[in-house]
């Protein structure tokens, strides 16, 4: 079946859109990066560790990672009203959870590391691109990290699993429609984030996780290469 399946943009089922990654795009920030899946672009900047204000938010046990995901108003065809929404608030938290396991913030007691993610151009999978950019920005900022994380969305279009959904695929209506499963992995294969919207059986979901694991290895190489280019 997979040989016959045609994706709207002609990609193979396990093919990620062209990836671009760049580190050091915001001079003011302690660390920053851009990550691109085709027409989806995310930029991220890291500030900190710095003292947490207001004081009552300070955690005397360990440092705090604080993420903020925001889509620019013109990033999609139908303008988004500027400012936070329920969606962006939830995604911000999801990204925090996806990144926290790799960041060694135990020693930054009472301090905060801010990660700001903005989407200037969107064609689906923006949270995945955001997580990839954020992980790179944290590394660029010199925050001690156990590992990088890489994130990708797996889609089920009717019955077919595909890697890295674009907007057209996200809106797939034929057959069983679209299922969107963004997944984030550490490089050593631990899952730090998974979400799902649609419908899928457990067998196929297990396959989706395997596909994501494979795709994240590819993404990791792109992130690593961009980070290595800083010194050059």
């Amino acid at each position, binding site marked *: 079946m997979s040989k016959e399946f045609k994706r709207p943009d002609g990609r193979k089922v396990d093919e990620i859109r062209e990836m671009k990654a760049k580190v050091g*795009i*915001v*001079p*003011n*920030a302690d660390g*920053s990066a851009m990550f691109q899946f085709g*027409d989806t*672009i995310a*930029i*991220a*900047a890291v*500030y900190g560790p*710095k003292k947490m204000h207001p004081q009552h938010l300070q955690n005397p046990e360990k440092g705090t990672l604080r993420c*903020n995901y*925001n889509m*620019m*108003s*013109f*990033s*999609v*065809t*139908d*303008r988004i009203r*500027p*400012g*936070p929404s329920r969606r962006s608030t939830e995604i911000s938290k999801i990204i925090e959870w996806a990144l926290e396991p790799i960041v060694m913030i135990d020693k930054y007691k009472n301090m905060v590391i*801010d990660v*700001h*993610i*903005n989407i*200037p*151009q*969107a*064609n689906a999978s923006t949270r995945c691109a955001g997580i990839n950019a954020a992980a790179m920005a944290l590394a660029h900022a010199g925050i001690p990290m156990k590992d990088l994380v890489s994130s990708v969305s797996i889609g089920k279009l009717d019955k077919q699993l595909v890697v890295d959904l674009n907007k057209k695929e996200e809106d797939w209506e034929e057959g069983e429609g679209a299922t969107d499963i963004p997944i984030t992995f550490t490089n050593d294969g631990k899952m730090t984030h998974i979400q799902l919207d649609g419908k899928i059986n457990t067998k196929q979901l297990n396959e989706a996780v395997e596909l994501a694991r494979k795709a994240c290895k590819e993404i990791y190489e792109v992130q690593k290469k961009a980070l290595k280019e800083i010194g050059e």
Partner: protein
Amino acid sequence: MDKELTISNLTGNKIKKYLAEGKRFDNRKPDEFREIVIETGISKNAEGSAKVKVGKTEVWVGIKMNVAEPYPDSLDKGNLMVTAELLPLSSPRFESGPPRFPAIELGRLTDRAIRESKFIDFKKLCIKEGEKVWTVFIDIYSINDDGNLLDAAVLGTIAALKDAKIPKYDKKEEKVLFGEWTKDKLPLSKEIPISITAYKVGDKFIVDPTRDEEDISETRVTVGSSNGVISSMQKGESQELEVAEFKEILELITKVERNIFKKLEKL
């Protein structure tokens, strides 16, 4: 704002001492801008978009359009809506949350520079008088703040407006076909407006301050004009100005405008 985020008195005094001799830390003359780099078409889903770098300061601007009812006092004209966000991504000084005064002022000043210069022909953006007109949304985002966001925002706005194409509109269904564009550009005047801000530092005047220079400036005047005709102006911050100083500012800005204008003509 955190005390530690603003510059020290020591640096401030040094900047003023240098300026007294007509010098700046980065070797520019008082009336000299940093390098301006403009790139258009940075976001595919926007009607028009641009990024502008002025030295290390960077601003991204996107244009979106939608059809709405006209305002009661301009039934045959399109609407303009300008918002600016000082992204926390762009500076350790900016915090998340509702827009504070500097972001509001940035949007307002840009709005007036565009609106008052009549750069956009809003009559041509009327679809059906009293019922349906185009709204032009200009959204400005700071990406890196190293001073003079005020002038950078207007430069970016001009570039994005010139880049913009009008979306397709289904007259029968009365709805915009988002993501599909006509070949029509926005109806723009040939006279390009620019906005230049003069900053008083010590008792000298400069344009295009870096973050440090802007920090120690006690007053500024923003002038929007096109083809030598001034159409918007605002004095910011609280220090008073002598009339002679005001005249000096106008001279400075007129001179600077000519140089910036050459850059914009190439767009």
